[in-house]
């Protein structure tokens, strides 16, 4: 993990330098060819935002079109949050923003300044799994696991919202998270375990 962090930093430093060079070259190239044809390189307009994710602040310069999902996965390399449909239909990308469960695929990262984002990576405290993570493991609430981070983020919010009052209520309030493997009965059991035992907030 430490080695990865170091090499990652080096890589970012190297690419930032390369990026600066490319931008300068692009401007020159643009000036040179502007008279004759369309410029081969276009510099996108960037937006500056500081993303606060799992308690750490990350200053970023990103294209305005970057979703929170893509910023988490591609810029911050927090790949626990999954891209399923990328259209708000599956829930695999569910994260918490200021405590509310939302879809990171339909959230623009540049609009998240000053907001606190929590992802699946931010749940385990000092290496100890969140009770919902532990319950999903204990109840086998997954098969392939792709939807699991979104399921867990949604499940934690559901319990905190006080929706876990019956099996039907849990099913209804989990309906924004699709499980292609059909692990629903086990997911339900995991949520009931946590809801019934007095959850950690």
């Amino acid at each position: 993990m430490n080695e990865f962090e170091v090499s990652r930093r080096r890589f970012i430093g190297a690419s930032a330098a390369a990026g600066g060079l490319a931008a300068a070259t692009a401007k020159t190239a643009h000036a040179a060819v502007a008279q004759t044809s369309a410029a081969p390189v276009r510099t996108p307009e960037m937006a500056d935002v500081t993303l606060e994710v799992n308690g750490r602040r990350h200053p970023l310069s990103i294209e305005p079109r970057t979703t929170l999902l893509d910023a988490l996965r591609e810029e911050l390399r927090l790949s626990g949050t999954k891209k399923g449909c990328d259209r708000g239909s599956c829930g695999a990308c569910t994260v918490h923003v200021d405590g509310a469960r939302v879809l990171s695929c339909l959230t623009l990262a540049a609009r998240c300044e000053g907001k606190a984002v929590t992802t699946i990576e931010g749940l385990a405290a000092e290496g100890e799994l969140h009770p919902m993570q532990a319950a999903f493991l204990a109840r086998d609430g997954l098969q392939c696991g792709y939807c699991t981070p979104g399921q867990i983020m949604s499940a934690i919010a559901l319990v905190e919202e006080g929706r876990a009052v019956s099996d039907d209520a849990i099913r209804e309030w989990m309906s924004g998270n699709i499980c292609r493997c059909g692990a629903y009965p086990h997911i339900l059991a995991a949520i009931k375990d946590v809801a019934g035992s007095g959850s950690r907030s």
Partner: protein
Amino acid sequence: MENFTLANAATLDAALAAAQQPDAKFIAGGTDLLQLMKDEVERPQRLVDLDGLPLDQFSIGDDGARIGALVKMSDLADNPDLRRRYPVIAEALLASASPQVRNMATIGGNLLQRTRCGYFRDTGVAACNKRRPGSGCSAILGFNRLHAVLGGSDYCIATHPSDLAVALAALDAAVEVQGSDGVRTVPINEFYLVPGDTPERETVLRPGDLITAILVPPPGMGERSHYLKLRDRASFEFALVSAAVAIALDDGRIRAARIAVGGVGTKPWRLPNVEAALAGAAVTPTVLTAAAAHAAEGARPFRDNAFKIALMQRAVARALATVTA
């Protein structure tokens, strides 16, 4: 998704001014707009961010409700006063989308979401009069199981997807709109346009107009309301047919009835003939079923959606039975 510039607006006036630029769009919750932009159905060059504008408050009292356009669906649905006075709104909201979407989407944006017609949302399809005026309608002779049986034209039979708008139609709510020339109030039943030969025009909003609030009159004496939504699956799905009913009861008789249906019309659709059949009638199963049968009047079925007519009659009958029980 194409890139765009993102402009923050510190004040309502600044937002309205920024929206005067060509190819600009407001963004609030963004749950529908970003889908449309990813699929390149919408290609704004500039987004005007409404976050932080003071339109996120609502008040519900004896003189009615005023709901700011930036109120989140989830916040409104959870309000005890709303659930008590306007159950039809709360039920419509809770039957909409998913908990995550409801935490993001706003009341104003909900009213302006675009149709779920698959031909409209797939830019790989050349012909769609709503997306490309004059290109033809692919749905009328195509796969139209989910399309409208009421209010369609030879140009478009796409349904309006909002549940909230159907509830508001039954309650005679109004939309407060601010444009460059000031504030105006539009009754919700005059807010949406039927497609006619200009299906690209869906509301009476003019370019740069912003919805600022929804206004709901107080419920009448003894009024009860209810929203019934029928879908292909139990949750997180758009309506095949929905029914919003508001009934004022007087000693076992119906004093007044207001009924709107969703999933079947090109806009939220009031059913005046059903309402007239109920006015003054005693509440019996026969009366309710006979009145609901009027829902089919004027309906025009297509290859795959004729089932919606009988389903609509039954949905109205069941919603009436529930609300008068």
